[in-house]
């Protein structure tokens, strides 16, 4: 094993050095340097500075006491996290093997235990990053020195990671060999089953106290009652052992608390290394699946799940060619829009709607009004980056786009038009809902319609203004994809890391400023029209309608020239430059 481990140590060391070189080299490119700077400033202002840098200010005073309820909640979160490892996720090892690992290391004379150790070492970097964030966020809240807290957090997160890997091994073994596979992992299976039984028994025993606490509105009390049963105290012991040093009051009690924490960590390590599961096949499938997903993201801009449903509208074989791109993108949205994401946005909208609903007016119209307004605001603010049926995904296929017999402006126009069409359809469907529900709410509250004379003109004005702003947002998002492909996320694959954080900050701020700049002249034209109106007309709510029409017309003219210009840029853009920028 020593010889093998020597080679793997070399792999780890060289990979780390080379990755650092690549990242340093990337800093020579302005977008990465600026992104890194933006991310660093963000982290400093939002996290470190707000919390008072733990590295600079040292531990809090000895009187800093963590409320017991927080410790309890933290332990409960750990239990839930551990439970998720058993309940969810397929029968795949929770070890991130790459295709290169599969092709080069699996056939090599390297034992499974050594491969597992390699992955455990590689997992340390994200664990250390997580610890850093935790230290920053919890600075000033603990009497312990930073180094001691870091060690306790390392023990906790590493043990959790090992537990997740161990659980995945059991699931892989069960999927491969059924009952025989489970029998092979008898110890963890028996322990988990016993823990579940004990948890159930404890819950049953404490049911009276829990109900009483819940009735009194004390969730903390219910939790404390649940944890007080002997059975659950045993089940929760490993979690308590890991959490205790993190919240220790002083170095002496920390040292005592670390002993059981390290014991739990050592047990998890021994379990994972000794598991000896034949994870290679499952790991290979996982590596292939992840690589295919990445390839789809890069080459086709496709989302991970695509449904082969009938297109919303058919494509005739004759007619204007750019319609084909519009059709393609709308169909792409139709087939790749993630139902889960739409569901989450809907849930968020409903939650906001429910929370804003006054008890006195707890009616369906008020709920619908809040929901439709949330939808409209979401569409205008975030729709352009959420619906990516445009150059935000097609720039990855620039060589193909460039080979099409279309002018650049036609391509850009169709691309921008597709996302705009999707969003505007949603907005125009929400506006009548907002109109009708506002009328109903006003009728309930004022017993008449006199208080909503402004409603019809406001709705009509919105019917022009909202799609107009959306079109500008989409055009700007596409402009960023064409002009600065290295700064924005192209395709569905989300980037991670500090540079991506900085890039998102810079591009979001940049897009917002560009949108405001583009909207400023049309808004000025709309305001100029208002000044030209007679005083009586100016005072009327109906003046908003011609203003919105002027705004829409001015933006249409502006976007016509903007798209033509962007088309010329697209025609001159070298695909290899895009590949280099997004690499």
């Amino acid at each position, binding site marked *: 094993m020593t010889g093998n481990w020597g080679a793997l140590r070399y792999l780890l060391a060289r990979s780390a050095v080379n990755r650092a070189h690549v990242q340093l080299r990337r800093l020579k490119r302005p977008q990465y340097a600026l992104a890194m700077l933006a991310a660093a400033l963000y982290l400093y202002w939002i996290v470190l500075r707000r919390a008072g840098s733990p590295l600079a200010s040292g531990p809090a005073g000895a009187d800093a006491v963590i409320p017991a309820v927080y410790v309890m909640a933290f332990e409960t979160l750990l239990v839930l996290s551990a439970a998720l490892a058993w309940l969810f996720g397929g029968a795949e090892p929770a070890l991130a093997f790459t295709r290169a690992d599969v092709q080069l290391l699996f056939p090599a004379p390297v034992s499974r235990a050594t491969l597992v150790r390699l992955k455990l070492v590689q997992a340390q970097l994200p664990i250390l990053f997580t610890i850093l964030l935790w230290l920053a966020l919890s600075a000033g809240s603990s009497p312990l020195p930073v180094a001691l807290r870091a060690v306790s957090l390392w023990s906790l997160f590493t043990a959790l990671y090992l537990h997740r890997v161990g659980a995945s091994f059991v699931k892989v073994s069960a999927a491969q060999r059924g009952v025989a596979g489970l029998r092979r992992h008898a110890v963890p299976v028996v322990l988990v089953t016993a823990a579940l039984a004990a948890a159930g028994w404890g819950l049953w025993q404490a049911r009276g106290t829990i109900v009483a606490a819940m009735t009194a509105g004390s969730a903390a009390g219910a939790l404390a009652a649940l944890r007080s049963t002997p059975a659950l105290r045993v089940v929760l012991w490993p979690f308590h052992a890991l959490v205790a040093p993190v919240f220790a009051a002083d170095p002496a009690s920390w040292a005592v608390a670390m002993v059981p924490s390290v014991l739990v960590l050592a047990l998890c390590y021994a379990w994972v290394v000794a598991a000896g599961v034949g994870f290679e096949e499952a790991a290979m499938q996982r590596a292939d699946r992840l690589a*295919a997903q990445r390839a*789809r993201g890069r*080459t*086709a*801009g*496709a989302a991970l799940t*695509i449904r*082969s449903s009938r*297109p919303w509208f058919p*494509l*005739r*074989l*004759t*007619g204007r*060619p750019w*319609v*084909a*791109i519009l*059709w*393609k993108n709308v*169909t*792409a949205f139709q*087939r*790749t829009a993630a139902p889960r994401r739409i569901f989450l946005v809907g849930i968020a909208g409903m939650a906001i709607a429910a929370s804003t609903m006054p008890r006195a007016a707890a009616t369906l119209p008020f709920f619908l009004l809040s929901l439709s307004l949330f939808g409209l605001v979401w569409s205008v603010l975030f729709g352009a980056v959420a619906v990516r049926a445009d150059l935000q995904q097609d720039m990855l*296929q*620039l*060589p*193909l786009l*460039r*080979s*099409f*017999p*279309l*002018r650049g402006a036609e391509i850009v126009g169709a691309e921008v038009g597709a996302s705009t069409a999707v969003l505007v359809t949603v907005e125009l469907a929400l506006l009548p809902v907002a109109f009708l529900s506002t009328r109903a709410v006003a009728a309930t509250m004022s017993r008449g319609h006199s208080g909503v004379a402004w409603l019809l003109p406001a709705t009509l004005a919105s019917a022009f203004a909202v799609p107009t702003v959306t079109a500008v947002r989409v055009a700007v998002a596409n402009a960023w994809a064409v002009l600065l492909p290295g700064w924005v996320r192209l395709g569905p694959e989300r980037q991670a890391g500090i540079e991506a954080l900085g890039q998102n900050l810079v591009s979001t701020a940049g897009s917002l400023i560009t949108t405001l700049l583009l909207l400023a002249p049309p808004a000025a034209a709309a305001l100029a029209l208002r000044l030209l109106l007679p005083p009586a007309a100016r005072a009327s709510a109906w003046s908003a309608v011609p203003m919105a029409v002027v705004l829409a017309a001015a933006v249409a003219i502006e976007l016509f020239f903007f798209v033509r210009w962007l088309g010329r840029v697209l*025609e*001159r853009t*070298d*695909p*290899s430059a895009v590949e280099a920028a997004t690499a």
Partner: protein
Amino acid sequence: MIEVAALTKRYGEFTAVRSLSFTVAPGEVLGLVGPNGAGKTTTLRALAGIITPSAGRIAIGGHDLATAPERAKRLLAFIPDEPQLFEYLTVEEHLRFMARLYGAEGAEPRIPELLGELELSDKRGALPAELSRGMKQKLAIACGLVHAPQALILDEPLTGLDPAGIRRMKATITARARAGAAVLLSSHLLHLVEELCTRLLVIQRGQLVAIGTIADIISGRPQLAGQGLEDIFLALTGDGERAP
């Protein structure tokens, strides 16, 4: 049909293609060969209108690619070595999309014909993710042929095809050339080039090394007489010394 005059493509200080000139007549199959990094893909991408040349002129069917790109591209089909497909369109929808995009006249009956010719009829409703590498390559080829192009540019067209697919593809290329299309084919498979191409264009480091039929090339270099295409290629590109 394809006219290239003094094509040059520079990336900063690096010149990928230097003053390359050649023509491909209707019915002709010109084989573009050269070692790795010779500038083949850059040349093909410039011809397809994907990258803009730094200098020189490209015309397809008499239409200048710089001044009338849409007209020139409408006559053209570019089939890259790595199939570029839209993951969210089915096989048949890809063909309908390309037909509309290229303004293909009478494409409706041609679509089932092409699907049959390339053995994709059973997969007409499948998404690219459900296709094998070879099937994807066939779909990319079908996309290129749906508008009956007069100029066909192929980059390693046989990659990923099985033996039956290779035979069918060779027949397809030959048939298109017989129908009057100008074909430019780039491949490292020299036996394929020898079998299909009427003329050869050998480039190295972005520059033309030789052009013509094999007989033409040998006539200027008597020392190559009697040698196979592989030896001729290695001798022309200076790789012969490295050959075992």
